[in-house]
């Protein structure tokens, strides 16, 4: 069976169908809802693999299938599907990881009353995410982009009776919407400038040469190229969705959702959509690179935002005590790496890291979920401990994920993808700062992951729940094992010696390997840094294990102010609440007050004035009008109701003024201008 671009709609349609089935089944239809969701994901995975096979036949081609959505003026608003290696690799990853997480969820959510709704929402998410990947139109991409936001909102707030979950869901939606407004504005600008939003359309698409050179060749009054401005606006959307500084604040709070949701949406797939977006529109982002004399290139901004996010996320992760929050900030940091890679010019390194990260971070989150499930929803690392013994599979797989994330050399996938990013940063000739930030984050990553593993799995159990923990059921451990295998194997798709993945993404038919020793200096440095982080982590947390849930953290003892600042996430939430949040509410109150007092006051003044003139000028008419009007209204209003004298007066005053105005106007027209 050949899957080409015109069949691609099937991939998102299958989970959408499952979501529909889930929505319409009654509450008791647990196995139907979950079964449909898993079956749809597996089928979508098979289709994605077939699509990948098609895409790899000619990796340089962009197969498209475009169609008119609705008529608009002389043309139509057109959407389309796109098949190329980028789309195909992403689809395979999302459906594979998604299917595993769906299976894991059948165990994790077993006791939840809204079990069937959970799978309905998960399927909705999968449909939107896959739609986003196969879109050949920025508009279709944006539609799906907003829908994954909706699914994320619903799933973060899945336990909506918890006020914290309800608040986190709203925060996620609103924060990402701030970025999305920039994105929308970029779309409007692009649409206006090019008259289409299709990526590839036989030479007329926005990512094709004619369009790119036109946009790079247009200079705005601020000195930027048009493509830079549009690119930066689109990047706003990526900043919001991918939790980049300064809109990262929603992502840690999103951990209020069930852990499989954190794994699928807030680690492996949705948050990486921002990276995918920038990779997808990479020709547009980099169109200004040919211009030497512009104030800033779009990608330079991307590189610095990425570098700052990578370092900041890693710093904050060091001082978190909630196992999921550590992983959340780690996600923020890793997404920063991907952005950094995009910024310094290597979008293939970014996608390579996106793919490896999806597997090992999903593994880590599901491992954390397994721990939380076993420990009766205890998430505080200080109250866990000693789980190495009772949860052997979880520990082993988690350790693999941890080493992949930390970048332990050679065997683990995270090492190879991170090396690719660092090499790209080294070759970037604009600034060395992103490389330095990236290297600093390497040490911190190894350090906080060692801290996490030592606190959770080593030492003794520090709470009742942790003491009675036992290994999770097979529905949960089997996905862990599979993901762990991928967390190792995937790295070998893109080693410098055989960069198969990179070559295919770039559209090359042949794979040109380099020696492993290319850039060995940097590789050596980063290996030393990883060792440093692991060693320091073990020295501080592993050699002297935590004795009780209430004992102070060693870092807190060493430097209380620094630890407090990091634990408080550097105060971003407080800062935003005090500035943006407060301004927002104040403007709301101001608008309402303006409406009530200024406009309302003017109206009531005018009414009084009308009343006054009426009383003075048309005393005679009043008795006549009043009598008739009162008689009518007397009939209609209920016996107990009465309205005040003032209001009746207002009405008549008004009517008189109207009558007067009318007469005057007609007279004027007839006498004056009515010729």
């Amino acid at each position, binding site marked *: 069976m050949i899957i080409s671009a015109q069949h691609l709609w099937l991939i998102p349609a299958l989970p959408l169908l499952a979501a529909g089935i889930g929505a319409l089944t009654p509450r008791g239809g647990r196995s139907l809802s979950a079964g449909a969701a898993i079956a749809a994901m597996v089928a979508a995975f098979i289709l994605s693999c077939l699509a990948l096979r098609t895409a790899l036949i000619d990796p340089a081609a962009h197969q498209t299938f475009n169609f008119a959505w*609705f*008529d*608009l*003026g*002389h043309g139509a608003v057109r959407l389309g599907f796109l098949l190329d290696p980028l789309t195909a690799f992403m689809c395979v990853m999302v459906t594979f990881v998604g299917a595993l997480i769906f299976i894991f969820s059948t165990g994790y959510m077993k006791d939840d009353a809204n079990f069937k709704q959970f799978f309905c929402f998960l399927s909705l998410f999968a449909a939107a995410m896959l739609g986003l990947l196969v879109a050949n139109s920025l*508009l279709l991409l*944006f*539609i799906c982009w*907003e*829908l994954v936001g*909706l699914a994320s909102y619903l799933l973060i*707030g899945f336990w*909506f*009776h*918890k*006020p914290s979950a*309800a*608040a986190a*869901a*709203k925060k996620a939606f*609103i924060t990402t*919407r*701030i970025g999305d*407004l920039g994105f*929308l*504005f970029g779309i*409007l*600008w692009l*649409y*206006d400038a090019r008259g289409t939003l299709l990526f590839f359309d036989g030479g007329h698409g926005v990512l094709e040469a004619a369009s790119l050179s036109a946009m790079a060749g247009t200079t705005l009054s601020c000195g930027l190229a048009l493509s830079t401005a549009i690119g930066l606006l689109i990047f706003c959307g990526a900043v919001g969705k991918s939790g980049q500084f300064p809109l990262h604040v929603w992502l840690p709070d999103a951990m209020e959702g069930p852990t499989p949701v954190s794994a699928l949406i807030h680690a492996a797939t949705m948050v990486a959509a921002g990276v995918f977006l920038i990779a997808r529109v990479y020709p547009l982002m980099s169109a200004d690179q040919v211009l030497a004399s512009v104030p800033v290139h779009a990608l330079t901004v991307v590189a610095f935002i990425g570098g700052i996010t990578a370092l900041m996320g890693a710093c904050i992760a060091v001082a978190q005590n909630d196992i999921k929050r550590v992983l959340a900030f780690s996600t923020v940091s890793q997404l920063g790496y991907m952005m950094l890679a995009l910024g310094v010019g290597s979008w293939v390194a970014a996608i390579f890291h996106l793919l490896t990260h999806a597997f090992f971070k999903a593994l880590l989150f599901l491992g954390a979920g397994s721990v939380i499930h076993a420990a009766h929803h205890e998430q505080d690392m200080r109250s866990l401990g000693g789980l190495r013994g009772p949860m052997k599979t979880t520990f082993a797989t988690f350790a693999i994920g941890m080493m992949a994330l930390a970048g332990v050399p050679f065997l683990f996938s995270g090492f190879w993808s991170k090396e690719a990013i660092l090499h790209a940063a080294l070759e970037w000739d604009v600034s060395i700062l992103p490389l330095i930030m990236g290297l600093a984050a390497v040490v911190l990553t190894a350090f906080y992951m060692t801290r996490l593993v030592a606190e959770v799995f080593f030492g003794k159990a520090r709470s009742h729940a942790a003491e009675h923990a036992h290994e999770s059921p097979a529905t949960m451990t089997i996905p862990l094992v599979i993901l762990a295998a991928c967390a190792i194997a995937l790295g070998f798709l893109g080693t410098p010696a055989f960069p198969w993945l990179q070559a295919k993404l770039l559209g090359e038919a042949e794979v040109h390997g380099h020696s492993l020793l290319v850039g060995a200096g940097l590789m050596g440095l980063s290996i030393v840094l990883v060792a440093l982080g692991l060693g320091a982590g073990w020295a501080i947390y592993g050699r002297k294990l935590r004795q009780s849930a209430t004992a102070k953290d060693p870092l807190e003892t060493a430097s209380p102010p620094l630890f407090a600042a990091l634990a408080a996430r550097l105060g971003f939430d407080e800062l935003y609440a005090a500035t943006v949040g407060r301004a*927002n*509410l104040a*403007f*709301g*109150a*101001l*608008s*309402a007050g*303006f*409406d009530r007092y200024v406009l309302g006051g003017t*109206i009531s003044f005018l009414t009084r004035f009308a009343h006054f003139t009426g009383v003075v000028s048309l005393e005679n008419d009043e008795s006549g009008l009043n009598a008739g009007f009162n008689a009518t209204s007397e009939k*209609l*209003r*209920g016996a107990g*109701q009465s*309205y005040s004298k003032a209001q009746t007066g207002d*009405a008549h005053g*008004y*009517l008189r003024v*109207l*009558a007067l*105005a*009318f007469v005057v*106007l*007609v007279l004027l027209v*007839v006498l*004056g*201008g*009515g*010729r």
Partner: protein
Amino acid sequence: MNSLPLLSLLVFAPWAGALVLALLPRLSPSASRGLALGTSLSTLLFGLIACSDFNPAATAYQFVEVHNWIRALGVHYYLGLDGMSLLLVLLTGLVAPAALLASWRLERDVRLFNLLFLLLQGAALGVFLALDFFHWFIFWELSLVPAFFLIKLWGGPGAPRAAYQFVIYTLAGSAFMLAAFAAIYGATGSLSFPQLAHAAAGGELAAALGPWWIKIVFVGVFLGLAVKVPLFPFHTWLPSAYAEAPTGASMFLTGIMSKMGVYGFFRLLWPLFPAQLHAASGVLLWLALAGVVLGAFAAMAQTDLKRMIAYSSINHVSYCLLALFAVAGGGSELARDSAATSAALTSAKEAALSGALLQMFNHGLSASALFFCAGILASRNNGNRGLADYGGVRTSAPLFAGLCGLAMFSSIGLPGLNGFVGEFLIFRGVFGLVPYAAAVACLGLFATAYFLLTFWQKVFHGPVAGGGKNFADLDGLELATLLPGIVLMFLLGLAPQLLAGLINPLVTTWAAK
């Protein structure tokens, strides 16, 4: 043309129903309800018949009925329908029966309520179909009378005052419009919209009125329409009128009556006074923007659910006018004779106008659904509508929460539901014509999401509290009221061609003007 006077049937079927109700004073409440619902549904039926015989490609008026009426004054009985009217007729056919179903459980003076409601529905249809100012204005004014009594007699505690304010304010606006048309009639001897539009396009209207008079007349017509929509700052009657009205009337007011004003802007003000509208568009754009932004932010500060939705209506309807004002005024300074630029401007205009028409329809669906949901909340909790009076409703009423959530997300403009398409096209068009206006209007998008999600969080989420305790889920009647609209929200979100196909040729000719 069709031998059946379809448009007359459309307009007068509800009034015939009202007449029957008036003549049968002994009719039982349930029979009154049934009769009213049946006649109300006739609009949908005739609307669909019109839809099937409608030729979208012909942009002239269709199903035209012209008869001499008052020969001495040259007044005609003149009905006709184009894509825009058709859209609004269909919307009336959807919203009015839903509003009657929403009032099904009303116990006081059932016959009178249904009678007044049918009068209101007929008057609204008359406004959408009449093409001669004489009876257009009669329909326009007659809609006020039933609306006044519906609000005053069946409304909340503040209703008498709110109804008064509503009528007096609207009447004041109408008086200016009446005077303006009297002036037009004095100058041209015609009251037929197509004739006047033709005269305006040829410059004869301006010549007949003179340079000063046409400005004054423009202001008069503008005031009448601006109050009805309402356009900022003529909106102060709206929050209390919408909030105090009974649920069914709120649904009709926001769904249909606010569209009468917008319709007037498109049918009267723009064709008759293109040059004046162009000259005033700079100021008017800011008024529309103020409605978009201040409306949304004022909604954020409300604690009464219905007032919040009322302010959100100001915000949504202002998008339609924003688009019109951008089209009428914008772009002229951008057009630098080059063919490419003028083609770009035309496509921006097409987008803005299509968006405005779609937005009218979409807002009618989503806002009336939201008012109905607010009515359900209040009916379950002694009429309390405070945001703080509820908590955790989703726990006890998941179905209600789901459907209300869909209406909310449609109002937010979530893609996949109907609201997105209209708003996206409006933004697309306005950006191409007046970029800064699109940037300012984005604030409205943000604030709308913020206050609607806050509403959702407080009322539906969190622990069960206040009115959320023992909250009964939707029953069959409520489901029947809400579900058709929700289904349409999905349908039109995924296949906007269903509506776009009806209006696109019309919009294309408008944009080419």
